[in-house]
């Protein structure tokens, strides 16, 4: 039950009931006030006007006028009387002068005796006025009708409000219950999915309300997560495979070494084993590096860096290596090309590209590096005329561990381009391959904002 009241749907329903009550009460209240005001004000003006007219009439004329007045007053709502200067009644239907000033203005008296002898008390308006001959004119009107009307309004409110409240509560509870039931279903489904039933999806009805829309979004999100999970599984299979091979070799080598009676043999085998373990560690380090770039928090160290300076630096670093392979290396930079980024990471990405270009270009080839800004986009291109990439392999080279058929014997972790691509991505750059016919062009270009 507590659970029920805690659900937001129920709270909305209760708020709805509250607002409805307040609104209805306000409407009734306004009607009540309007009636009271309209009735009272109109009667007051009439009485004051009559009193003013009657001041100068003779006593006989007054007596006649009163008589007519009372004959017409079937509901006995009118008061009219004339009092002497000694405040004793001369004639009229009310025998006591109420305690009001003799100023010709209307006054509200809450309890006056009803004309006709019975001792009921009613609210009324009175006007009293002194006449030139010293007598006092009193006119009045009972407010009983108006009071009754107001009572009706109040009792209507009282009798109407309770059923309306109940109705609102019932409707609110109905909707709340329905919403709660749907939310409970969703909650239970999510719990099941978290427990491992990853094929389950949230229910979506064709009605397409807000909850359906959110459910649909959550389902799409689940699909995407599942797709990524499958992808990650593929990657970890690759990792396992890439690490198992060198480990299997190491295992075989060490076994052979231990069984050999020759100490030198064991030594030689141990050395080979070390090389393979080094290779495995290189792979692990590269994987950790990749994870750092891909899933680490976006570097807080992003600042203005100059791509030209970075490439010039790397050009000078790699040129002796190129020269040692008789590869001609050239650099083309314009003025500084400033971007917002992490200098260390950018250096690593470009270093991978240049290192690859030299690695996959035979002797007497060329490698050129250029940094430009084209239509406002910063672009780094590393071009070589080496072995290039076969058309069928071009979309695979950025995948983890992918080694091209032709480049398989060149040493490396198979992760260099993945890391470069991840770094480019982190900087809102795209890294793509182009055919240089012969050779390759790797272009790293800032995305159009």
């Amino acid at each position: 039950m507590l659970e029920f009241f805690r659900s937001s749907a129920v709270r909305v329903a209760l708020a709805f009931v509250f607002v409805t009550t307040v609104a209805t009460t306000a409407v009734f209240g306004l009607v009540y006030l309007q009636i009271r005001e309209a009735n009272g004000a109109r009667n007051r003006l009439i009485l004051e006007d009559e009193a003013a007219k009657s001041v100068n009439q003779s006593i006989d004329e007054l007596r006649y006028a009163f008589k007519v007045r009372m004959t017409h007053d079937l509901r006995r709502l009118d008061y009219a009387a004339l009092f002497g200067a000694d405040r004793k009644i001369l004639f009229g239907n009310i025998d006591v002068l109420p305690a009001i000033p003799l100023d010709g203005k209307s006054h509200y008296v809450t309890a006056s005796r009803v004309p006709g002898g019975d001792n009921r008390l009613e609210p009324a308006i009175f006007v009293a006025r002194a006449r030139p001959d010293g007598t006092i004119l009193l006119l009045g009107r009972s407010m009983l009708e108006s009071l009754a009307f107001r009572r009706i309004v109040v009792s209507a409110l009282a009798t109407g409000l309770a059923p309306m409240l109940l109705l609102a509560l019932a409707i609110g509870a109905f909707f709340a219950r329905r919403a709660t039931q749907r939310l409970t279903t969703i909650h239970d489904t999510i719990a099941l999915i978290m427990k491992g039933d990853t094929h389950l999806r949230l229910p979506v009805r064709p009605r397409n309300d807000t909850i359906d829309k959110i459910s649909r979004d959550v389902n799409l999100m689940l699909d995407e997560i599942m797709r990524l999970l499958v992808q990650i599984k593929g990657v970890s299979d690759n990792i396992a495979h890439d690490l198992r091979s060198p480990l299997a070799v190491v295992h075989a080598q060490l076994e052979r070494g231990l069984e050999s009676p020759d100490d030198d043999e064991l030594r030689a085998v141990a050395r080979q084993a070390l090389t393979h373990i080094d290779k495995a560690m290189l792979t692990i380090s590269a994987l950790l590096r990749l994870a750092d770039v891909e899933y680490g928090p976006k570097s807080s160290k992003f600042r203005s860096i100059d791509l030209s300076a970075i490439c010039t630096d790397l050009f000078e670093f790699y040129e002796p290596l190129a020269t040692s392979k008789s590869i001609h290396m050239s650099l083309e930079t314009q003025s500084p090309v400033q971007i917002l980024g992490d200098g260390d990471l950018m250096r690593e990405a470009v270093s991978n590209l240049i290192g690859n270009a030299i690695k996959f270009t035979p002797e007497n080839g060329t490698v050129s590096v250029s940094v430009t800004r084209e239509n406002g986009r910063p672009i780094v291109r590393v071009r070589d005329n080496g072995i290039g990439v076969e058309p069928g392999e071009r979309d695979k080279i950025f995948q983890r561990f992918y080694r091209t058929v032709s480049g398989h014997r060149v040493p490396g972790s198979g992760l260099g381009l993945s890391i470069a691509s991840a770094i480019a991505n982190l900087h809102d750059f795209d890294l793509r391959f182009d055919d240089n016919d012969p050779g390759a062009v790797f272009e790293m270009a800032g995305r159009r904002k």
Partner: protein
Amino acid sequence: MKKATSTGVKPILLVEDEKELANEIKIELERLGYLVRMASIAEAADAARVGDPAMMIMDRMVFGEDSLNTLEALRKEGVKVPVLVISALSSIDERVRGLKAGGDDYLAKPFAMMEFVARVEALMRRLDDVRTTKLRVGDLEMDLIEQTVHRGDTKIDLLPREFKLLEYFLRHPGQVITRAMLLEEVWQYHFSLETNVVDVHISNLRKKIDARGVPSLIVNIRGAGFMLSANA
């Protein structure tokens, strides 16, 4: 100079909760003639305050605690003992954090023992920040003010980067220097390379500084890196 302890040899303090790795490190360093003592982070900090250890090797995370906090506190107290931080956290950001906290060097796991030992030796033999203006090994002399290098009477012209490379060797004579150390210290590249660029740079430097007919001043150390032979 700080006063040596009663034994005369200051130990290397090792703060590492991975038992097997700690053991390997201890065996390897002891094989090289160092005295190694395992310590908890608190013990290490107390020892460092009284100037006991020759250096400290700290794992970044020991029993779930970030040892950089302790290191930072020690540095604030003015403790100057050399510290090598080893860590499974490999990103550049973490490295920068390690150095900022007061680490003198930062090595990410997994590392090769050769690499590790080279780092330890470099820190153990670090010169007490003497403002030398001239570095010399054999008849090779470098003038840091004039920015010139002479081999005997012959002046050797070096490119700026070659000058820095040679300077690093001259500051660490007789020590194994790994490719990664050169990349970090000479080029400020904090990533691993799959090519042998550094070897090419060394070979170019050798061509310039070596005299005909005598063995090279910079020798290759198999599986580890290079060494500027001190007794040339």
